[in-house]
């Protein structure tokens, strides 16, 4: 048993080592900025699609917007600056997700807050349930004992035997 535990520990250590090794390999792709920003904006033609996913034939907006985004990146605009320029030109609905300022913060906070509140409530409920005594049912039958109980047990054994 001890040998098996040792093997398991070594396997776990080896796995962790592999994970750490691969974690330090490779680097982020800087060229993905256009793709990233293009997926953080909506096409404003009314198709309700992400800018880089708008495939409407002859869409007058998406081609121009992609060109503007490319131009902003070529100018060396930061992500925030590029997005801000789009908001000024096309309105707040051009951004595909609420910003993290002002009232829009509520959009982001609420799901996590609800999760935390839900978890807390559940932990409290679980604690209460663990500590509470059993409530007998109104229509419950009297407990059985002795030979009758043995008979039921024998029946249960037969039913669950495979």
């Amino acid at each position, binding site marked *: 048993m001890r040998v098996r535990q040792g093997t398991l520990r070594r396997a776990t250590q080896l796995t962790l080592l592999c994970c750490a090794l691969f974690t330090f390999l490779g680097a982020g792709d800087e060229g993905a900025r256009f793709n990233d920003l293009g997926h953080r904006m909506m096409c404003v033609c009314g198709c309700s699609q992400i800018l880089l996913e708008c*495939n409407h034939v002859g869409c007058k907006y998406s081609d121009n917007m992609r060109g503007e985004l490319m131009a902003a990146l070529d100018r060396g605009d930061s992500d925030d600056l590029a997005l801000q320029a789009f908001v000024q030109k096309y309105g707040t609905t051009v951004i*595909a997700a609420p910003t993290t300022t002002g009232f829009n913060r509520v959009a982001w906070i609420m*799901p996590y807050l609800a999760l935390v509140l839900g978890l807390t409530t559940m932990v409290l409920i679980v604690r209460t349930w663990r500590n509470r005594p059993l409530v007998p049912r109104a229509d419950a039958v009297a407990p059985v004992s002795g030979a009758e109980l043995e008979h039921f047990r024998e029946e249960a054994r037969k039913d669950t035997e495979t």
Partner: protein
Amino acid sequence: MSQVGSFALLLALALSAYSFLAGLLALARPGPGSERLGETARRAGIAVFGIVFLAAVVLVVAAFQDDFSIAYIFHHSNRDLPIAYKFAVLWSGQEGSLLFWSLLLATYGLVLRLRHKTDARLFAYASVIIAAVQVFFLLLLNFAAHPFAVMTGELPPDGNGLNPLLQYPEMVIHPPMLYLGYVGFTIPFAFALGALIMRYPGEKWINITRRWTMVTWGFLTCGVFLGMHWAYSVLGWGGYWGWDPVESASFMPWLTGTAFLHSVMMQEKRGMLKVWNMWLIFITFGLCIFGTFLTRSGVVSSVHAFAQSSIGNWFVGFLALIFATCAFFYVKNRTHLRSEHRLESIVSRESSFLFNNLLFVMFCFTVLWGTLFPILSEWVQGTKVTVGPPFFNKVAIPVALLLLLLTAVGPLLAWRKTSTESIKRNFMWPAIGAVLVGVLMMIFGVRPWADVSYFYALMAAMLAVLVALTVVSEFVRGARVISGHTHQNLLASMVHLGHRNTRRYGGYIVHFGVAVVIIGFLGSAFNLDQEKEMGYGDKMQIGPYTLVCRSYTQEDKPNYGSEWAIIDVFRNGKQIDTMYPERRFYKASQQTQTMPQIHPTVKEDFLLVKDLYLVYEGLNQDTGRPIIKAHLNPMVPWIWAGWMLMVFGTIIALVPNAVPVRLTAPARVQAAPVGAD
């Protein structure tokens, strides 16, 4: 024709109202005549099916006869519409789809009323509640969204035609499936509310409702996945889920319905969560109605919502009435819903179900919150904001991953209490398998630190493998015990095992299907796309595939004109397929529609299958050459395979258990180390 339809709808309303009022009276005032009165109510409910069916037939016949004197037919059909889509006219517009909803409810009601002998009093309550819901929809059909309204003035020679997005084979089955799911939740809702009103003793109502709920859940699952497949095959953006409000509307009741299917087991086996289950099914039904409201009221913008109309107010009123009724009877009879047992251990099946339910409901809340936040924002700060995929991906995916973890862990925990030893024993190999997959993915270039989508993909892959391996280990462990006694091979033993507890093992197959679907989803982190104008002989490279434009042409058909390209697909210099991406122009509706072409690379990549997805974007007016967009979407076919497994698992779970076969071996079978379902 329209007069027959109008009369049928009025008659159906009168009969539904009678079924509701007479049924209510019979239940409220038990006496010598109440049984007969209740029987007349039941029969009136049965007759509603025949009358609503007649109305639906009249509308379809009008579509086949191109009867443009009926405004609905004029707006949603045309002379050259293919026959299959003439049936689809029934659910392609506001009024027709409400009639279809009413027809499905009448059909469910018919089955319920014919099976009333199972428990006459509970079924009578359920029948009255269904009649009340039917009255609401028939009121809508008669007074707010009349499908037989007639055109005024000179009759038009042809109709406006069916929306091109709906002229796709799947649209003949996707809406019916979705509606069967939506409408079907009326039945468990009716049983639950009926059981609460009559203070139904015991958990028999849960047993009666279980099959209804599973069938309904199965239909809703099919509806949601068919919708995804339709979006993928028709909308031409290379994706299948865009967090559109109408998609979310179908997903929310699916989430709470799934939570309900799990939590009812707590009530059945341990007499716990009675209040929760009651409210969960109330909420699920409410969300079905809410989804219909979202689709039809125009409060949120969506690619496939119906036009803005006044019927939204009707739905708001109906939702308020449902909530008030449920709340009233809950307050009145809440003492009836006390739990009978206490929780014995945190590490148990019970607590895993609690967490599972919490996460499902939180997931649903997140989707609801994101869907409604634009309205809230406009109300509070006067400006509308967009809540699109980036929001949902950030807040919903972590919850989904936690749910996936519980899908793996939950089934291996025993009821009441699970020992640490048992957890170690059951989890060791699946966990090693999951970690191994994670390491392999990193070796093959998945860098979770490079992009959050890669991190999610890695986690999802590991958890999906964990789920799959735990399911497989459960099957193998059980099958080995059977094999040891019957000397059958392992596969036959697995079939035998599944047949003995169809609900448990059907559920495991559904879990396995979910894992397969998740593997399909995670492929989206590695999607590629390219766009190019392609003349004769022009080439485009995407991944290992070379696309060569052989030709492009135009064609004219009665219902539409089309432009399409012929693209030869090569891999490693060898031609593997020819694809025909197309764009259609529908004459009656004057709308264009892309028809993407999809080539799943099963032969070339086997398990690491990808979809080569070509879209004909249009002609460059200056050069006259087509613009082709190519997507390479890894693992997408896994989604559809996982969906098939989920449906298969649901069907298995619906099959009655086989009578346990007595084994000849004298020895007792050792109890399984994990909790039996």
